[in-house]
């Protein structure tokens, strides 16, 4: 562990990151390794190209969206802190300590709402807080491809909006999104167990 701790010390804002994301030391170190492995030119930050090299993202229809989610505010680079912050959404939820938390403290990044928010963001292309029919169609096209006719795709999108939309504005807001997935076990499904 000695080598790890010395390693950990080399990461800037080590304690801040830990406090914010709730990652354990070991997994932070691991993530840092991964971060450096992804960062090909040792720039100290990741750009889109770095993430696009990941093979698993290439087969993912929403791969681009996932990559986008690492670059909030349209920036072109993400440092280690931002990287970890995104991944903290997928930290499994611990059972204990949920009741004791100081109400003034911000909600942890891996809470249900934040997980949902992350998922919502994948669909919300223009980041206006709503998934419009248009955005839905784009996602559908990515997911289903050319095997379903455009007309059917449109009917699917219409149906989805119709199902989820509650205030009648023709788009799915975050609250409506959350309500749709109310029965879904988001805490478990949006957790990667290696990110303890």
């Amino acid at each position, binding site marked *: *562990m*000695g080598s790890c*701790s010395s390693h950990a010390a080399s990461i800037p804002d080590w304690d801040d990151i830990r406090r*914010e994301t709730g990652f354990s030391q070991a997994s932070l170190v691991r993530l840092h390794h991964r971060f450096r492995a992804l960062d090909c030119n040792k720039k100290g930050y990741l750009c889109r190209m770095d993430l696009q090299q990941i093979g*698993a993202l*290439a*087969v*993912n229809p*929403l791969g681009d969206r996932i990559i986008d*989610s690492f670059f*909030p*505010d349209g920036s072109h680079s993400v440092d280690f802190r931002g990287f970890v*912050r*995104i991944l903290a959404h997928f930290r499994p939820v611990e059972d204990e300590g*949920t009741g004791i*938390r100081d*109400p*003034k*403290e*911000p909600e942890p990044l891996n*809470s*249900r*709402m*934040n997980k949902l*928010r*992350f998922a*919502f*963001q994948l669909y*919300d292309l223009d*980041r*206006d*807080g*709503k998934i419009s029919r248009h955005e*839905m169609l784009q996602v559908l096209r990515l*997911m*289903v*491809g050319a095997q*379903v006719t455009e007309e*059917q795709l449109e*009917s699917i999108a219409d*149906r*989805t*909006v119709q*199902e989820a939309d*509650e*205030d*009648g504005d*023709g*788009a*799915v*807001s*975050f*609250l409506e*999104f959350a*309500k*749709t*997935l109310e*029965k879904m076990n988001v805490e478990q*499904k949006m957790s*990667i167990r290696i990110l303890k």
Partner: protein
Amino acid sequence: MAHKPELGAPQMAARTSVACSQLQFPGDRSRRKTSKKQTSKAEGTSGRHRAQSGQKEEAGGNLRPGSPRRKQSERRRRQEELGEQKRSPAGRNLEGRRKRDGKASFRGQRVPPEKEKEVPKEETWKQLKKHRSTSLASSASGGESLSEEELTWILEQVEEKKKLIATMRNKPWPMAKKLTELREAQAFVEKYEGALGKGKGKRLYAYRMLMAKKWVKFKRDFGNFKTQCIPWEMKIKDIESHFGSSVASYFIFLRWMYGVNLVLFGLIFGLIIIPEVLMGMPYGSIPRKTVPRAEEEKAMDFSVLWDFEGYIKYSALFYGYYNNQRTIGWLRYRLPMAYFMVGVSVFGYSLMIVIRSMASNTQGSTSEGENDNFTFSFKMFTSWDYLIGNSETADNKYASITTSFKESIVDEQESNKEENIHLTRFLRVLANFLIICCLCGSGYLIYFVVKRSQEFSKMQNVSWYERNEVEIVMSLLGMFCPPLFETIAALENYHPRIGLKWQLGRIFALFLGNLYTFLLALMDDVHLKLSNEDTVKNITHWTLFNYYNSSGWNESVPRPPLHPADVPRGSCWETAVGIEFMRLTVSDMLVTYITILLGDFLRACFVRFMNYCWCWDLEAGFPSYAEFDISGNVLGLIFNQGMIWMGSFYAPGLVGVNVLRLLTSMYFQCWAVMSSNVPHERVFKASRSNNFYMGLLLLVLFLSLLPVAYTIMSLPPSFDCGPFSGKNRMYDVIQETIENDFPTFLGKIFAFLANPGLIIPAILLMFLAIYYLNSVSKSLARANAQLRKKIQALREVEKSHKSVKGSAMVKDSGYTLKGSSKNATQFQLTKEGTTLHSSSQSQTPDQKAQGPGTSSSAGRTSLSTTKHIPVSPPPRDSGQPLPQTHPWRSASGKSARRPPPDN
């Protein structure tokens, strides 16, 4: 007090007592300095008795403040005892001096140094922990780990010292001696308790953690293993992703059937065939186990064996091979009894398993159906598995998402379809009428042909066609009727799922005709053989009598027994029936495979490769690729199973053949589907509970139970073959067992139970129970449906309520926002509202910084848009951080509670 938990309990007790008595002996401290601190352990133990009680307190008092530093040094170099001992006195001296300054208020004084040392101590402790855990993990323990012997020795020592500390006060030693002793002892205990007791505790803890981790991992692996153990799961998933759940449901059914057959196979093989082979009389010992002389020459020919004649006929695979000996072998295994019981339990088990799976399917279906509200949203938002990193899996996932969407589209189209109801009704009635006509026609045709064949069978030298007329007609019907039904069913315009059920039911009715003719022919055959039996019996007796009593043989020397192959014997109708079923199963299997090979595979090859040089597009045009015929395959499977159930009593080997058949057909059909079929034009979702299949299976099971029960109950078994030969009826074996093997009172009880006066009330009671349970379940189902309706209505109300509000908001802000049209300015506005709102929210800056900017603001946008309708200052309560767990819920509840906006 960070170090407190590290100290042992006895020490603490000692220390408190010391601290209390400290005030009584203030003058002793000067003596402490002079006392020998470098006394080795051996000296200490030898001179223990000289110590005085006053010293103890002193030592205890300064031990605590000194301990952190000591520990610090000790832990680093545990083995260097000498160095440590040199160090600790120094610490003690220092402490002593400090203590001397504040004699009276010792307790008050003691606190600050402790606090001073807390921080560095904690650090060291942490370091130590780290060090230890790493050494534990790497198991390269180096200086830390002690050998087993050392450990036990140290443990003993520690215990001894602890005892010493506890009893120090009673020792008749001088004070100085006591003090030294105590100090030594406590130092030792502290040090080695850290190394050992606590260390062991730590090690135990680390071990436990390790085991917990291992256990979690094991559970995970075991879960994976379990899924891997489900046979053909991957294959079926593969098919499901390409062809939809309806095709997969057939394969799941096939797999289930395979499981059932494996159990039956185990039952029959374990309890009948293997005991017979191991313990029964060997082949050739008695006539029923020997090939007759006339057949002997050709008995090993393949063509004979292929017809299940020759050696196969006289093997344990068939009923006739079994002997009617009551018990066999040294185990005194009651084979006839076992044979009968297994025959009964095959049906019992099958009935039970079918009904049970039907029940469990119904249970599963009720808990489903809840998510109907958000089918598309669920599919849209949650269908992709983001952990997929393999392109092949990704392809499958693509296919399955597409399929599931298609299924939902079909469902949706069906539910939204609005047509002329009268026309549909008329068409459906017409279609049913046509199909009933078809069924009646084919039924009459079958009846007619069977009648004719009975006439033909009496005539001599009939032609080939006349002999095989029934089979030809049956197969022609089977070939042409299903497509005809399908064509007619197109009129009805049902949802494909319901259409499939109708189709299944109709073909089932057709197949019943098939079954009927088969059974009829079989029964005729059996009766013919039974009528011949008496004459054969006489011939046999006559032959044997003649053989043994013929003249011209020396009366004193008994004749060698007649060779079993030469004994004339009856036709053994049970074996004939068994052979018939065996043949049918095998030919059915072959026909299925050949059909798949020709109809699907060759057609697919033709279409695929001839398409390059053909006048029209073969793939899109006429022949095209075959679709997977769900109804035909399911019915084939069900009827085949019916054959197995009927035949297994007369041919115990039949189940084994069937297991092989199911196994091969699983692989073969999986391959054929994936290689040469295309998905259905309208992919539809199979109902999760394929209770319809199960219902058909139950019906077939019942139907196949009837002939077997009939033969067991009312036909006499053959006189010279099978386990029941010589008895009047097959079930006599039970009576025999009860009489011979059970105590008499049990026999009486059984006789009493078989009394019709008892059976009829029991049956009545059962009917009553069924009626009661049925009505209860019906009322429950009604309540369930009502509740569901209520939920639906509630949701609708909420939705309309909200949409009213939403439109009100739009009006308020002066924009007209239509359903799906996007209005940039509108969003601009909401965004402004958001920023305004979010700035008013008392969010901690930390969270603002942490959220990926837009994502959190997006969430807030949605919060604000739904919550505050006019652009008025937000209500006070929303400014506070929302309840962390379910903000949306509270928000929606709020909006529901709030009165509609005043516009």
